[in-house]
């Protein structure tokens, strides 16, 4: 192990790790809104809308994220969609994780016993009020846990963005392996950074989970 080299490349990798965090955080943020919209569309009154949302989710989950990335980045200009690599990573990441997340949110909502919403409706709560005050507080715990798993997948998937030349952690690591000829050191350091990011995500998820389930008795 070459300690001096590791100290030397740490700032470079840390900077790249920040890009990984930034790209994942933005994709998660926008993905959440896409997922919520998809959940709403899946319960829409109009049949074609429901059908459209379902097939979108099915197609996104049925094709590799890698191919989606290549399709939008290299194939996008053919339909007038020109994105710079970073934006493309965020957009594709958000639309990809949104499909998975909509299933997670739907699963959490459906895990609440239907008697709860029936009781709430018969007590005079409206549809929205039932969702806001009865269903969501009870499903929040499960929802946060499953979104947490997806956030971890998102961080690991963000490594694929290196293929469209975004300088994030994996891209930087590959470049450093090529220029220093010290694969073990570079791998150890970049793996450590991924692990730190993942454990930070897990910590945040655990914190949110405990907050969300403060008043729930199981």
């Amino acid at each position, binding site marked *: 192990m070459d300690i001096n080299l590791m100290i030397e490349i740490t700032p470079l990798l840390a900077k790249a790790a920040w890009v990984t965090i930034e790209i994942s955080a933005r994709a998660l943020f926008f993905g959440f809104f896409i997922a919520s919209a998809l959940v709403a569309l899946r319960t829409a009154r109009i049949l074609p809308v429901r059908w459209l949302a379902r097939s979108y989710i099915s197609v996104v989950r*049925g*094709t590799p994220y890698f*191919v989606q990335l290549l399709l939008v980045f290299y*194939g996008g200009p*053919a339909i007038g969609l020109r994105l710079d690599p970073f934006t493309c990573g965020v957009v594709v990441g958000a639309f990809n994780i949104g499909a998975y997340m909509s299933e997670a949110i739907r699963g959490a909502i459906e895990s609440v016993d239907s008697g709860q919403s029936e009781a709430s409706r018969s007590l005079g709560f409206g549809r929205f009020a039932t969702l806001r005050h009865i269903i969501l507080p009870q499903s929040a715990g499960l929802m946060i846990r499953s979104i947490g798993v997806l956030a971890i997948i998102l961080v690991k998937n963000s*490594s694929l963005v290196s293929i469209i030349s975004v300088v994030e952690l994996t891209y930087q690591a590959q470049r450093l392996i090529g220029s220093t000829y010290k694969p073990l050191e*570079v791998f150890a350091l*970049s793996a450590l950074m991924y692990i730190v990011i993942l454990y930070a995500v897990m910590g945040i998820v655990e914190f949110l989970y405990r907050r969300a389930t403060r008043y729930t008795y199981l």
Partner: protein
Amino acid sequence: MEFDFSPVITYFPTLLKGVGATLLIGLVVALMSIIGGQIVAVISLYTRKVVNWPLRFLIWLFMTTPLLLQLYFLYFGLGQWILIPAIAVGVLGLGFHYMAYNADIFIATIKSVSSGQYEASRSLGFGHLATLFYIILPQAFHRAIPQLGNNMIIMVKDISVLSAIGIAELVYLSQYAISVTFRPFEFYITIAVIYYLINLLMETGQSWIERRAAARR
């Protein structure tokens, strides 16, 4: 914007070759990761700490770092010490990655088989290993089937990542065709459709296997 799918038709035999390669890699990796995962799970559950601690560390390392980083390390890194062909790196890298995930599943399902099963089998005269092979592992495997199926469906999608280290599978061959015809959109759409069909087929297969497995209980 006008689409021209005729190059896709011209290069369709190339794409079919890619599909064949992808499916073959998938089969090898599936066998390797399921059998290997089973072995890793048994070793990490039933041996001394000296043996199973490093193994658990490896499982953890494979599960916490991205596949592409592992592939780069194996391909550009290990290549400096020993010469391994890209296809071997790809299959081994993907195999080890999913071996870790499958081992994790097997560890959970082996633990979930009630200890009464073990005690009953021992009191009927089975030895420790015989109990493991004839009583515990079959039940654990049975319980692991749904999650193994999910993992393998995810794995087939991850084969596309192998194109990054130059393995001639579906995406790589289509990239070659694109470099000749300059039609990225048409080709990538076709790839997406092919992958979606493979995925549908696997999901159907998974539910068929699960139904068969449930019937045999």
